[in-house]
């Protein structure tokens, strides 16, 4: 409904015009907010200046002089504060990205298990949910941080399988040595995903046109795995494992996950998964039982009912609150500062302390979290539009 539809016949003065009034209120609000913002800003600048505290952004380009425990990119103490903050940003993204993926998988599984008729599954799931969501996330993180410190020393590390070690220095496992073929294999995987989408679309069209059902589970999997596999084989199947070994104090080589990363990742993943499980359960249960019975009555199979009747309606309930969970998981990753995971807040704090430029450092942190959150929101809104039931 646009504003002009609402326009009332003018009775004398334009002060009573609804459209005019709404504009005036909005302008007043904007001016008020603008003034508060400006007053805060100028006050801070003026007082920092009088107290002789340095301001400005030049520090971003000066050498930081401190080292960081783990980094996705090359970094040493000679690099700038700006790069140090970038390292922190990437570490935040790393734990948030993996956390979102694993919390979703675990949450969906637990949510479905909770409505399962299998007593054991549903009991395990309800325990998981109640413990997960009723303990503060801070305690989750500290709990896993403490557990991992109680694991054995590197020399007595637990060995779940050959080449992998679990100990109080984290988890190390073999990892393939980089080969020039791998980007192409990655492209193959993307081609596989596109292939699966096309295959599903073709099967759907065929079903709608002829009423004939074409199963795409196995053929889809074949396309998904087959594409990258063919590329990999075409390059001569290059694969060398980098197996970690104990040298001096620590393990060298392979994939290394620090105890701080593991504790933070497990803590926020379990916490968020317990909420997602409840969201999934409520989504499934929001579909009226009559629809499922009706679908059964017209002779649809179980898997069919789930896929074409329950899930499309459940997703409408599931997606919006799940987006909020993703946002809170991302922001909860800042708890890494408690256990020493070098995320954005941890490095931001060090930067703040070494340079004394609190306002700048905190502004950077806030803007970065805002940016990450907006990207997640935009993506989830887009996905929500895709899965929302089209009202016709």
């Amino acid at each position, binding site marked *: 409904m646009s504003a002009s539809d609402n326009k009332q016949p003018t009775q004398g003065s334009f002060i009573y015009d609804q459209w005019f009034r709404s504009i005036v209120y909005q302008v007043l609000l904007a001016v008020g907010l603008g003034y508060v913002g400006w007053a805060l800003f100028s006050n801070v600048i003026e*007082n920092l200046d009088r107290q*002789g505290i340095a301001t400005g952004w030049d520090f971003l380009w000066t050498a930081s*002089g*401190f080292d960081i425990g783990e980094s996705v990119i090359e970094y040493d103490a000679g690099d700038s504060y700006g790069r140090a903050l970038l390292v922190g940003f990437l570490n935040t993204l790393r734990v948030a990205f993996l956390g979102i993926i694993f919390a979703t998988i675990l949450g969906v599984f637990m949510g479905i298990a909770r409505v399962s008729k299998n007593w054991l599954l549903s009991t395990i799931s309800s325990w998981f949910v109640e413990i997960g969501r009723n303990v503060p996330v801070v305690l989750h993180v500290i709990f896993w941080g403490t557990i991992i410190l109680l694991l054995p020393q590197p020399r007595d590390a637990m060995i779940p399988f050959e080449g992998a070690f679990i100990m109080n220095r984290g988890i190390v496992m073999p990892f393939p040595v980089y080969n020039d073929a791998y980007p192409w294999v990655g492209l193959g995987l993307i081609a596989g995903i596109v292939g699966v989408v096309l295959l599903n679309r073709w099967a759907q069209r065929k079903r709608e046109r002829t009423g004939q059902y074409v199963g795409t589970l196995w053929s889809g999997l074949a396309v998904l795995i087959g594409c990258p596999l063919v590329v990999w084989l075409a390059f001569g199947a290059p694969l060398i494992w980098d197996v970690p070994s104990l040298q001096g104090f620590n393990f060298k080589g392979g994939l290394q996950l620090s105890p701080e990363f593991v504790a933070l990742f497990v803590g926020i993943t379990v916490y968020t998964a317990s909420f997602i499980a409840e969201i999934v359960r409520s989504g499934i249960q929001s579909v009226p039982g009559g629809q499922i019975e009706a679908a059964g009555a017209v002779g649809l199979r179980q898997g069919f009912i789930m896929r074409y009747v329950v899930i499309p309606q459940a997703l409408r309930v599931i997606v919006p609150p799940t987006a909020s969970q993703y946002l809170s998981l991302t922001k909860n990753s800042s708890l890494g500062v*408690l256990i020493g995971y070098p995320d954005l807040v941890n490095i931001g704090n060090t930067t703040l302390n070494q340079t004394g430029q609190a*306002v700048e450092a905190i502004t950077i942190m806030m803007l970065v979290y805002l940016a990450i959150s907006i990207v997640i929101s935009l993506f989830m809104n887009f996905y929500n539009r895709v899965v929302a039931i089209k009202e016709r």
Partner: protein
Amino acid sequence: MTKSIKTFAALAIAGAVSMTSVGVALAEDGPTVKAVKERGEVLCGVHQGRYGFAIADNQGKWKGLDVDYCRAVAAAVLGDSEKVKYIPLGSVQRFPALQSGEVDMLSRTTTVTLTRDSALGLNFGPPTFYTGTGFMVRKSIGATKVEDLAGAAVCVFPGSTTEKNIAALFAAKKMTYTPVVIESSKQLVSSYMTGRCDVLSMDQAGLPGHQQFDADNPADHMILPGVFSKEPLGVGVRAGDDQWFDIIKWVTHATFNAEEWGITSANAAELKASTTDINIQRLLGAKGDLGKKLGLENDWAYNVITQVGNYGEIYARNWGPPLNLDRGINNLWTNGGLMYGFPMK
């Protein structure tokens, strides 16, 4: 995050508040002295827990060398060394807390550096303790010197000078290491004790306490020989309040001079009445007007010495048994150390 936001808010609010208190005439008390007298206590930022410097005992009573300087300032300004509110601060919070006015003075194992003095808008009193970066290791790892630490995981406080010293030291020796950076003192030390780190690094004087009190078996650990940086620790105050800065400075010198001149908490009363030494008479307020020049009572230093003690007494109280830290360069200049009280006349 929340802590940082709080700091940020405090900074903004304190900035707004302090606008009203600029341009005070010299005869009047400066803003900090005025605030302290009105409040009736000194807000002193201290370490959350470091043996010898600042640690709360099981009755919640704070002890340590840094704590004694908080008490000395309270004795000088308010006449009672107990009128102190201790505010434990992490290494990251400490400067914003001081800048924002959350504390009046920062007596928290803080190294005096050029950047902190200038860009942070602070001033530092004379060093009350000289130390340097030290390393503690488990004997079982077989390291006897810093060169043996290549590849080690090192537990260190964030935002500390130690953090930068280690980076420079290891880079100079072309060795790699993994820093494990945790702000909470308890978490950091327990990370070392449980074996997450091979090395615990901080100001060397802080290490014996953790070895004595936090290790299951102190004999399993050793402090590597050598000191790897200069860490003069001093009391920090906000720049721009000269009177308060002067008080911090001269309270510290009073403790040095008292030791040099043989004034102790036990004999100060007797000396004040009987001595003929004009220096001692001036210091204890029997003659002259040193107190008035600082805007304090004339018995300010007398209160400091009777209630807290001279530097030697403070040192012995905090670094005597069971820590037994040798005085080394923290001795008086007359005994080959660096503690040198300026003339008080």
